[in-house]
């Protein structure tokens, strides 16, 4: 197991290094990055002046080296609007985004897994059909639209919940639910099909032949076999979750990283954009790493090589 950990750590480091490189090159996609840092109506002289000021006139490899050295130390420059340290600004927003993302994840797992299990057990009954229909629908709903609809229903018509903003549990409900919708659909569907696969396996037959009662087969044996692929799916879907969080944060004005990123993009505040994009990649890589380790621990075939 130890060498697996070491190998994975090495991979993460490489990926992060390449991610930084990607960030460096992304803003140069349209050729000259100077234009990105200035308002669209800047004059030629202003462009030239800024280009020198920001060092964009130097050879590429020089810029690259400087960028990488600074970035590795956490220096992404300062925000063009607020003059604060770009990376710090983004870091400050981490707690809010995590609140949203993990509440959402927890909610969706809590709802989806039991639904999936019951669907598999009651295969082809009305319960199952309804579940399948709901999951198919859930995967077709764009999160921002669902958010708008929920706002309309609960905040405008019923006036039970606020329309946006952050800071309290009440504000968290709608965004978390919106973000969870897509995940619930995917997880429930996957749980169902994995469970169906597992229930057909020979080792379940052995358990039955030993006299194990059905509830125990479902809730202890089959469950553990099902959870392992689900962990893999959660890891795969984390990216979607983080991406979705960006949109949901905007719709609900939730003060997280995503909202900051959007505002920075609209304001052409690219130091913050770069810091934000990299940080998200960093978090994503770390979470994937943790999930991989978790998976290796839970799956005896890897743990005891």
């Amino acid at each position: 197991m130890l060498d697996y950990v070491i190998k994975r750590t090495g991979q993460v480091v490489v990926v992060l290094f390449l991610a930084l490189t990607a960030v460096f090159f992304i803003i140069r996609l349209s050729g000259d990055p100077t234009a990105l840092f200035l308002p669209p109506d800047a004059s030629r002289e202003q462009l030239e002046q800024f280009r020198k000021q920001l060092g964009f006139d130097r050879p590429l490899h020089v810029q690259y080296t400087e960028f990488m050295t600074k970035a590795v130390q956490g220096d992404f420059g300062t925000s063009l609007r607020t003059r604060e340290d770009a990376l710090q600004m983004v870091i400050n927003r981490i707690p809010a985004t995590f609140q949203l993302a993990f509440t959402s994840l927890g909610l969706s797992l809590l709802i989806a897994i039991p639904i999936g299990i019951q669907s598999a057990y009651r295969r082809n009954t009305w319960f199952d059909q309804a579940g399948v229909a709901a999951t198919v629908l859930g995967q077709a709903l764009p999160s921002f639209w669902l958010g708008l609809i929920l706002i309309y229903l609960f905040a405008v018509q019923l006036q039970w919940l606020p329309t946006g903003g952050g800071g309290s549990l009440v504000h968290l409900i709608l965004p978390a639910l919106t973000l969870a919708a897509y995940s619930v659909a995917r997880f429930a569907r996957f749980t169902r099909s994995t469970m169906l696969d597992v229930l057909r396996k020979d080792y379940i037959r052995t358990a039955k032949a030993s006299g194990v009662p059905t509830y125990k087969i479902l809730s202890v044996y089959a469950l553990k076999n099902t959870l392992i692929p689900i962990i893999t799916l959660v890891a795969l879907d984390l990216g979607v979750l983080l991406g979705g969080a960006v949109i949901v944060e905007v719709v609900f004005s939730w003060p997280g990283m995503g909202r900051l990123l959007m505002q920075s993009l609209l304001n052409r505040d690219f130091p913050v954009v770069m810091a934000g994009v990299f940080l998200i990649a960093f978090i994503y890589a770390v979470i994937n790493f943790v999930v991989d380790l978790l998976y290796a621990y839970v799956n005896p075939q890897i743990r005891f090589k």
Partner: protein
Amino acid sequence: MNQSTLTEAAVNPRPASLSRKREPAWRTYMRRLVKSPTGLAGFLIIFVVVILGIFGPWLAPYDPNQAEFAKKLLPPLTDGHLLGTDQLGRDIFSRLIHGTSVSLIIGSCTVLFAGLIGTILGVVAGYFRGWADIIIMRIVDVKLSFPFILLVLVINAVIGAGLQNIIISLVFAGWIVYARVVRSEVLALREKEFILSCVATGVPRWEIIVKHIVPNLFTPIIVLSSLQIATYIIAEASISFLGFGVQPPQPAWGNMLSEGKDYIFSAWWLITFPGVAIVMTALGVNLFGDWLRDVLDPELKGH
């Protein structure tokens, strides 16, 4: 091995139609499609969307960009406007139809280019291995470390908005999935006996790739594409909603929702219909894609 092997043998004997003459493949598929309610529903929805997208602009009752301030924010079914008008007095129904064309173009172009690029790179990586494989897979890993929507968003912000650019952004972020899937398929195919025997008899590499490997890739690519289209359409809508992508006044479902959200308190129809359009399209694509997957490769797990 599964318990079901036993049941399978008992319950699913091969059809007696083996003794009849074979009917043309497309007719078999059509028959199976009609038998499946969800697959059929998906197909019909896609059919309607495509027809609307291609011919709609001629059939739309109003000019989507014609603004009549006097007639702004009319509810549905008033004054000849089926779905009402928006804040500038433009007919929503007509705008919706034009938006369909936009989504259609974006969806199909993205799938085409992302699929092409991804497949080529996937084949190169999977078949030739070595440095090409290492480089391509590292790029894939990096791209994967960013959430898809975020990547598209940032790229689009950098290169500028507009229909063309959103397609470019989507392709830039979207080829990865294709490359990964194609690569793993190629890796598996490489070891298959029929390929090994081609190599052993001296068939040139290019011929192996084009004549033997690529045809076996059609099924996974089609299945993957059916899953991806909905993702691309929703991604485009999201990005346009956030202010990038397709810009107003060009009608697109995403920016219609973006403009409409300010009127959520007073005119619910502005955000309802474009949203329904997106959901229906994605639903249709997913339903049909699921059916396609079942038909082409029942072994794949439902993801």
